[in-house]
């Protein structure tokens, strides 16, 4: 014993560690890979994503190739999922629809996460007047309806019709401008509660700044509702796109999207029921996979859960 009682050592343990310390993310990866349901769902997401990327190679026909004689065929050998009202192969339209729908879903959520997480963290960890201003900003964006943004964007883009995909960009921007609100409010609410915990006081005492505390201590503890918000935001975005397209402010025919296909199928629901069923099924499959991946991620990121298994 060389140390004295009057000057206790700063480092209590001096023996070497048996193995390098495992990080939160490495632990999470290990726990996630053990969850069969989540891994399987992740595989389905990957399949759907590659379906969207390689639509040109995978689909049996073009999405806009119509053979009027073959209109309204029930699923059969030549058209596996049948044809729609103007004789377009429905399987091809679903495969191409993945492109628009998943692009809208992912881009909107990426945008929403960037804006929502930043503003929510600022409001939640600083509080006071910054919180006040950010939340009034949120209220303004809640009140202005989305179609007004969409219409405004369309009128701004006018004259630049040459840009291909302007409709898609409009839709993504318009939905993204609204989509961050839930994420922002959830982040702020969680942080307002978490920042009063003892470990924040401890971190403050050690000299950590507010943003460091938010990043290292608060956000990892606020993840559960955020994961749900992001996964559930995807179908919301997909249907908002369908709604905007329905009003004529979104993506124009013949480009297909799942939301639009479901909305269009309503007129035929009693006769050509498959027109609504198939897009609903792929959308439901996508969403279920995302939900299980999300739940798996949440469970994997919770260290308390890992000890119990």
């Amino acid at each position, binding site marked *: 014993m060389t140390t004295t009682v009057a000057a206790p050592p700063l480092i209590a343990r001096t023996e070497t560690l048996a193995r390098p310390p495992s990080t939160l993310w490495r632990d999470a990866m290990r726990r996630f890979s053990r969850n069969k349901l989540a891994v399987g769902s992740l595989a389905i997401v990957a399949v759907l994503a590659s379906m969207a990327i390689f639509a040109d190679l995978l689909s049996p026909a073009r999405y806009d190739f119509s053979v009027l004689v073959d209109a309204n065929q029930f699923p059969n050998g030549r058209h596996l999922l049948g044809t729609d009202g103007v004789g377009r192969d429905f399987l091809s339209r679903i495969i191409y629809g993945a492109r628009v729908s998943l692009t809208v879903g992912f881009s909107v959520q990426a945008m929403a996460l960037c804006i929502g997480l930043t503003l929510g963290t600022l409001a939640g960890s600083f509080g006071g007047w910054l919180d*006040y201003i950010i939340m009034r900003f949120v*209220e303004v964006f809640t009140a202005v309806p989305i179609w*007004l943004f969409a219409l405004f964007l369309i*009128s701004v883009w*006018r004259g630049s019709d040459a840009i291909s995909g302007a409709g898609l960009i409009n839709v993504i921007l318009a939905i993204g401008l609204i989509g961050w609100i839930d994420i922002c409010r*959830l982040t702020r*609410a*969680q942080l307002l509660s978490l920042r009063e*915990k003892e470990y924040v006081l401890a971190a403050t005492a050690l000299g950590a700044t507010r943003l460091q505390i938010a990043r290292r201590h608060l956000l990892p503890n606020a993840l559960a509702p955020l994961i749900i918000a992001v996964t559930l935001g995807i179908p919301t975005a997909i249907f908002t796109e369908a709604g905007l397209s329905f009003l004529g402010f979104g993506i124009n025919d013949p480009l297909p999207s799942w939301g639009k296909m479901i909305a269009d199928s309503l007129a035929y629901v009693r006769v050509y029921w498959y027109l609504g069923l198939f897009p609903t099924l792929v959308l439901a499959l996508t969403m279920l996979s995302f939900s299980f991946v999300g739940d798996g991620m*949440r469970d994997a990121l919770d260290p308390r859960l890992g000890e119990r298994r």
Partner: protein
Amino acid sequence: MVVYLLGRLTGILVVFTIVSMLAFVLMHSIPGGPFDEEKAPLPPAAKENILHKYGLDRPLYEQYGLYMWSALHGDFGISFQSPTETVVQLIARAWPTSMQLGGMAVLLAASIGLTAGILAAVHQNTWIDYVVTLVSTLGITVPNFVIALWLLLVFAVGLGWLPTGGWPSGGDSDFKALILPVVTLALGPSALVARYTRSSLVEVLHAEYIRTARAKGLRDHAVVLGHALKNALIPLITILLPQIPNLITGTIFVEVIFRVPGLGKFFVSSIYLRDYPMIMATMLLVATLWSLTYLLSDVLYTVVDPRIRLFGKTT
């Protein structure tokens, strides 16, 4: 607290002003006007007269000033799509129906969602949990206009148990007409509530104080409802409360499909018809309701978690 609430109410006025300006500018910047008839255009002189009558030929800032001045006196103008009544009369006629429908849907959604979410969290990673995840994901994925049509086909057309639509006009009328629209409207939000309840409750159920409560010998439902649920409420308040303004202001598809004479359809018809007074009025109504809801949820945060401070110094 009083100072804080006064500050927030001032905030609502500020938001109100910004929203009205933003809406006014955006609304007039989009192409097309309320009296642009494509098929039978009005003679230029007649159109000029009409525009003059409604003040639409003045510069934008003047129109805005006039609108706000009359709005402050309670005059929100006359709806272009229904010129026989003022906007206030129109909303007063249609909104109560939407409010009843939405109110019932909110109550139903909260009770179904909470129950399902709690069951799923308590039985985490069992078949109950998976069924709740499956059903609630479907409830969010399948849009309400599809659900409405299927419910209509099954229960009204197929089985003939319930009427296809309409709205009880008071007295001895048939309240069965309420069931389908309320259920349709409630399904999505209840799925939402179930998902958030499950995820935040699962997190809380693994905390140390829950283990302590169980170790004390408390019954299961006392642990879950008394200790765990209260600490899982913050995300729920954030998500559930905005469903109230969302549902009570009316929804276009459900109201059209079930022939409910509510406010929902005016949100869409006002866009098409460029019905400026109606667009402004509905938007300001929505802005006020949402601001009040946000204020209420902030107050509820401090009730659920007394450590939360909305004002003053934090620790």
